[in-house]
């Protein structure tokens, strides 16, 4: 586990529908694990010019003129984005302070969120994101445009808020024995967060029940060593269906799982288990890469 002790909990704030809930969860995580909270607003340049001309001719010093035009245009765009972002991030900061977070950093950065995460990830212990941003507002099942990219670029655990804030009580860990899910198990065992008044469920869905039971026993021994009590459940069937059913019947708040153990191409052809889970479940998620 490459987790740094008390590394930053980072959350992206973009003023979208889920932004409030994301912030609430980030505040909750930061307080529970007594880690500093970093609020990040990214300023994304479109790099698309509004002033296009289709003259198609080359005039003297065209490059210099075009560079001036484009940089002027982007300068205005950036200034506006920065100003808007300042408002958003100030609101978030006030809220976190009011909630009692003392160790707080609020920053703006140029570039996309995945880019920023890639640059900052060495200082982080967890990233908190909303399942969708501005682009998918109002869509019931839509996942954010940058979510999968964000998950794929960072090697740190990611908390994904799917719905409004409710103080979590029950955590479910989906364990299939894969390397990423093994990492997730270690995270579960090592994080202070899970040792405090949370009910931990471990489920395993395999082709035959004995395999699933073996996995549950593995998890049991790891978690018990870490001083964590758990409820284990071995099951068979179609994984997504079985797990989501378990989530609803047991009132699970947060699902912990390994994510995207296959490459992007595999996901393109066969569909990704992680993506399906994210779409089908109604709980919040902690994904481990």
């Amino acid at each position: 586990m490459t987790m740094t002790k008390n590394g930053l909990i980072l959350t992206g704030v973009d003023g979208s529908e889920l932004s409030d809930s994301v912030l609430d969860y980030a505040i909750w995580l930061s307080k529970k694990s007594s880690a500093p909270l970093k609020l990040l607003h990214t300023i994304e340049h479109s790099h698309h010019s509004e002033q296009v001309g289709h003259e198609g001719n080359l005039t003297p010093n065209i490059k210099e003129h075009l560079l001036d035009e484009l940089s002027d245009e982007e300068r205005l765009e950036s200034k506006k984005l920065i100003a808007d972002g300042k408002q958003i991030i100030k609101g978030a900061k006030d809220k976190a302070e009011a909630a009692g977070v003392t160790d707080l950093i609020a920053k703006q950065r140029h570039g996309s969120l995945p880019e920023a995460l890639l640059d900052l990830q060495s200082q982080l212990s967890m990233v908190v994101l909303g399942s969708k941003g501005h682009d998918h507002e109002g869509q019931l099942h839509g996942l954010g445009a940058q979510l999968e990219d964000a998950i794929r670029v960072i090697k740190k655990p990611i908390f994904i808020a799917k719905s409004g804030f409710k103080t979590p009580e029950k955590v479910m860990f989906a364990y299939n024995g894969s390397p990423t899910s093994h990492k997730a198990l270690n995270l579960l065992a090592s994080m202070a967060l899970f040792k405090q008044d949370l009910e931990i469920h471990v489920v395993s869905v395999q082709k035959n029940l004995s395999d699933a039971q073996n996995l549950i026993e593995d998890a049991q021994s790891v978690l018990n060593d870490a001083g964590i009590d758990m409820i284990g459940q071995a099951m068979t069937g179609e994984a997504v269906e079985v797990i989501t059913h378990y989530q609803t019947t047991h009132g699970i708040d947060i699902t912990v799982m390994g994510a995207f153990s296959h490459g992007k191409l595999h996901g393109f052809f066969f569909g990704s288990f992680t993506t399906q889970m994210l779409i089908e479940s109604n709980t919040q998620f902690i994904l481990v890469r």
Partner: protein
Amino acid sequence: MLLSAKQDWLGNIRNDILAGIVVALALVPEAIAFSIIAGVDPKVGLYASFAIAVIIAIVGGRAGMISAATAATALLMVTLVKDHGLQYLLVATILAGVLQIVAGYLNLHKFMSFISKSVMTGFLNALAILIFIAQLPELTNVTWYVYALTAAGLAIIYLFPYVPKIGTLLPSPLVNTVVLPLVVSFFGIEVRTIGDMGELPDTLPIFLWPDVPLTFETLSIVLPYSISIAIVGLLESLMTANVIDELTDTESDKKRECKGQGVANIGSGLIGGMAGCAMIGQSIINVKSGGRGRLSTMVAGILLLILVVFLNDILSIVPMAALVAVMIMVSVGTFNWTSIKELKTNPISASSVMVATVIVVVWTHNLAFGVFAGILIGSLFMAQRLSQFLLVESDYDEASDTRTYQIIGQVFFNSSDKFIGFFDFKEAVDKIVIDVHRAHFWDITGVAALDKVVIKLRREGTDVSIVGLNEASETLLDKFAVHDKPEEVEKMMGGL
């Protein structure tokens, strides 16, 4: 970045398609003109432009950059085509592609850092001059009609954009190539047309292996051309990539671009096209027209082929004067006009590098030679400047009859004479201490100079000791990047 793939293709669909159309329309006359420069049928340049644009859209490292048949590479092929014919050009094209892929794997794009701004300006100015010179055959020994038509073409190209409404909708080079043939046929003027210059494509290109004997002799004929084409192609492509990076404030993958150019040239050679590379002018036009993604390059390539295959009858009656007007525009747009003004204000070293680059290119018709000359002269100036960072502090201690020389600064081939000059060999003293711990010996010439000094002093009967040689000779080892720590930099600057 992973996320960039989708964004590169579909992030800007509407503007990319529109810009791709503008570029395709502007590309047709250029591709024909470059074929004529190289001395091949127009279809060779048109097939090449199609293949290169479509392939580079997929495998290139710079989204939104336009690659096709270019003047820079066409100029290198003239003698090969004249002496050996088209089939050898196709082989040279494929081989150039292979060399570019190898260059990509060898990370040769990193050598771009040796190309200074002055060399780049010289490259573009020289290219502009060569493009202009290539038009002169069309403008000498011709009737006044040709001059009138060329002037009319230029007027349309530069003034049409000022026409309200339609001015910014239709690319003016296209208007030029549509209006001039109408004028010519209306008045029944007899002038040379594109149709007179050779075959235009009437079918889609087909896969063809060049019809040459695969012998060592063939290789020895094409290899020198392939090397030049590969180098010039990569130079212009990487320069253009830098221009687009700057214009759009985004980054490109230079290594991928090198390999991509190679793949594109191989593809071009296999369907009967000539070698090409990125086009600085068309890429700027693409960005200006709103093109940012790979889709723009793809649209430009595909539309170009559709246009020429279906409109070849119309194209063949376009007067050469219309093409010449387009090429004069390309020349004017490529030339860096402010660089003439800056000749007076820039340091003389920068100006002479720029001018030398231009002169060597215009003289040899090979941009690679000009770039090498520019780099060489630039490096000499740099060596000259670095050798100024060398000084000596000398002390005499009467009690022990000891003279101490403390050397501070850079000792290398160009400063070694200056280094030797610091010592007073005529002074008769018992002991001499040479303290070099704040000096840097960059090459064996510097070390040899120190040896020479020591031997000469010993001959005079003086005891010589050297202090701090270890620190001083650290630079001799070709371990780059050892000097990137603050204290190392401090030491390098002589601890001043």
